[in-house]
């Protein structure tokens, strides 16, 4: 994270605020400048599929709105005022104080202030998320770790079927809500109890308190969440299953479920029964529309280009290659994975399938991306699966376009999700809808 960025596809550490909003009845408290929270809300939630305020997001977020006084003389007293008020005014189960650039730069001792409240028994934690520290991917991890480290106690007993799910990042993934409930349904389908932690019906603070009881942690993402799993292993000794590919469509989802089942030592038959049922449904529709896929009328895209977070770029590439036999062109990973994870991601793209591999570049800067994609030649119109920023690019290189990555300004997203068997069908409908819609 160093180069200048045109058309950002992720925001700063303070973006962790949205992960708090995603926890049922949790209240973020922003100790930062007056505009920070609103900008994050605009970028990650509103102008990203118009996901909206939710329970305590948007304008409801308590904040210190730091002014010159707080910069010059320190803002700790101001923070106390706001926390006091928040505890009275805001109806929540968990309070998370997030610091912005101002507080972190002038060196307010937020941790101490917050711990005073916690010692008085208030369910409140602090995450130091000054924007300059990194992207909201880091912010998400910081918030989660803060809750784990400052609030959770070792479990009395381990629940053998309980699994904590660390996967897509709330709001950063425009489809997080639908995706997480899909992951839940699939895991429950093979006999596990999924601790989803974010979104509707995820259980709020109570669910978070159960984290130490889990039999294992599932990190369903190329890299985000691994450090969370580490912390949990150190504190509670919980084992980790890392599955880097977001399962979209039958091939990947089945592979994923079998991997999980094996790791969790689940009885074989029920798992297979579930898989057979789901695959049957999925392939019924692929079969029904097979004429369409094969007749490839209307120049359905010859090559596809992903411009998205590694979790989507990889998941969707595997899906289009495995299920629709489409071919990858240049792939672009925009979530700036830490160096130590890049080799693995490169390898996944190199080995999409025997005889099918893809070049990948890591960049979150539209200027760089656009120059790279203009270099390539295309026999048929390519398909760009990326953010709304890329609509112009798609037009320039004569391709088709579907927005699935932040920021999504040209779609409204409610409970749509792309994960799993159903998700795959949904993605097919959306991709070809966007193609056919251009005629």
């Amino acid at each position, binding site marked *: 994270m160093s180069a200048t960025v045109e058309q950002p596809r992720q925001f700063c550490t303070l973006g962790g605020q949205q992960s708090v909003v995603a926890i049922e009845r949790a209240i973020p408290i922003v100790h930062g400048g007056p505009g920070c929270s609103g900008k994050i809300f605009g970028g990650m939630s509103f102008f990203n599929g118009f996901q909206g305020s939710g329970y305590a997001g948007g304008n409801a977020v308590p904040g210190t709105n730091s002014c010159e006084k707080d910069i010059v003389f320190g803002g700790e007293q101001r923070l106390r005022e706001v926390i006091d008020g928040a505890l009275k005014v805001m109806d929540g189960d968990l309070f998370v104080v997030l610091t912005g650039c101002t507080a972190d730069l002038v060196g307010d001792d937020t941790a101490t202030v917050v711990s005073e409240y916690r010692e008085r028994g208030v369910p409140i934690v602090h995450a130091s998320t000054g924007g300059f520290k990194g992207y909201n991917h880091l912010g998400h991890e910081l918030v989660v770790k803060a809750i784990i480290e400052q609030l959770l106690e070792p479990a009395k007993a381990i629940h053998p079927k309980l699994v904590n799910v660390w996967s897509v990042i709330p709001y950063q993934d425009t489809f997080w809500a639908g995706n997480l409930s899909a992951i839940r349904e699939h895991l429950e389908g093979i006999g596990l109890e999924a601790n989803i932690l974010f979104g509707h019906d995820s259980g709020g603070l109570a669910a978070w308190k159960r984290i130490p009881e889990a039999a294992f942690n599932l990190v369903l993402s190329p890299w985000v969440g691994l450090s969370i799993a580490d912390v949990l292993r150190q504190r509670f000794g919980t084992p980790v299953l890392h599955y880097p590919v977001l399962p979209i469509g*039958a*091939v990947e989802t089945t592979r994923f479920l079998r991997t999980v089942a094996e790791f969790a030592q689940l009885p074989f038959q029920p798992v297979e029964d579930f898989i057979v049922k789901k*695959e*049957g449904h999925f*392939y*019924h529709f*692929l*079969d029904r529309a*097979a*004429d369409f*896929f*094969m*007749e*490839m*009328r*209307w*120049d359905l895209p*010859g090559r596809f280009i992903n411009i998205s977070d590694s979790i989507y770029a990889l998941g969707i590439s595997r899906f289009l*290659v*495995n*299920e*629709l*036999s*489409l*071919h990858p062109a240049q792939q672009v990973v925009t979530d700036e994975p830490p160096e130590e994870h890049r080799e693995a991601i490169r390898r996944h793209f190199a080995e999409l*399938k025997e*005889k*099918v591999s893809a070049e990948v570049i890591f960049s979150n800067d539209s200027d760089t991306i656009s120059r790279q994609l203009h270099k390539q030649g295309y*026999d048929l119109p390519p398909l760009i699966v990326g953010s709304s920023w890329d609509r112009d690019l798609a037009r320039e290189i004569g391709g088709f376009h579907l927005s699935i990555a932040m920021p999504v300004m040209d779609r409204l997203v409610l409970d749509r999700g792309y994960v799993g068997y159903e998700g795959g069908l949904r993605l097919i409908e959306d991709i070809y809808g966007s193609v056919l819609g*251009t*005629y």
Partner: protein
Amino acid sequence: MSLVNIAHSNLPTREQRLGSIVSFEGLASELAELSRSGRLQDRPRSFTQVSSCASSCAICLLSLIQDAAVVNHAPLGCAGDFSMFNLVNRYGLVKRGQTPANARLVSTNLNESDAVFGGSQKLEQAIRDAYERFRPKAIFVTASCASAITGEDIDAIADQLEEELKIPVATVHCEGFRSKVWTTGFDVAYHAILRKIVRPPERRRLEVVNVITFWGEDVFSELFNKVGLEANLVVPFADIERIARLSESGATVQMCSTLGTYLAAGLETIYGVPEVKAPPPYGLAGTDAWLRALGRAVHKESEIEELIASEHEAIRPELEDLRQQLKGLTGYVAAGSVHGHSLASVLRELGMNVAGGCFWHHDPKLDHGDPAADSLEHLVKEHGDMPVSICNKQAYELINQLRRMKPDVFIVRHPGMAVWGGKLGIPTFLVEDEHFALAYRGLLRFGRKILDAVNNPSFYKHLAQHAKLPYTEWWLQQGPATFMKEAE
């Protein structure tokens, strides 16, 4: 003698004109020989699956004329393909950089009482409506089984409305039951065009070459410009004025002589526009021969030779490379006869084996009657013999064949047929743009496309695992020709 008689509103079917057939099982060489010796006969099938009718082919061509309207005098089901032609139309316009617009199609929506009392008023009404709504330069009235069986005199109505509206109103006799060979529909559409649209030449434009084709991308202009010729693609996406002046061109060529045989022959017999009588320009040998024939027709032999040489040079390296990669792969082709022959040649020239071909029908001769253009003969001579089935889209026969042939790739040119290859797990694609493989550079495009298909067959594999075929085990054990009776 000429088969083209524009005094009549109707013309004989292909069976009657050309002795065409829709069923045959044997070697390409046998089929060619039988055709040449005039001993070719059809073997009716007892069991059949649905095929297509002349109505679709006729409406397809006419509905893509940009300032004409089509009135389908039929019950509503015969309008089932309106939506397809609409998409073809919008899609074609977008590709040609124009704003997409709906096709100008109207159905008279014949119902029970019309069947009893006749639907003549409705037809008049519909023609007037079409005129009011679209202000077209011409209106085509396509007939249907129902309109024919109830015995309506649509020609009389058309002539009367032509008087009234002062624009050509042409009837198109594409009743579904008249012919087993749906390409008869092309003939009747062209017949209507020859009768009512094409004018005698005002001035000859020898540099202009008519290209009879579908909706494919214009790959001809680039080729022709190099030798100072101008490609005039018809009928789709042309307008009435351009079609009216077909008679002024220096020659007529076709991307598929099954498609254009009647129009080309008509332009030659009526207006003396020479038809280039050669197999279509697919594959090196085919393209060479076709270009040379064209060169002779327009007296540009030397320019053509230079063009051929330079194009060969341009594609050689990649072609070699492709041949290496495709070597040993086996293909199977299913398409309309002449275009099918072309695709088979292309595969062979790409270094592939061709396990065989399935063609929707076979014309033992073309309207011009000149054997020089026999594309099947050409295929056998240039690329060797192969098993051939003639089968008007009988999926049960095709699938029976494919299961025996087990090709590495299956190439199809007709909606609805590709899916059967896929359900057997065979990498399959439909040739949507009929010009995709055309001429020299098409050879390369097509090769790359095949490589893509065979390099990532996962879609087909999964489909095969999960798709259920609607055929009995019994059938799959029988020979493909089981239901063909002996010739009557």
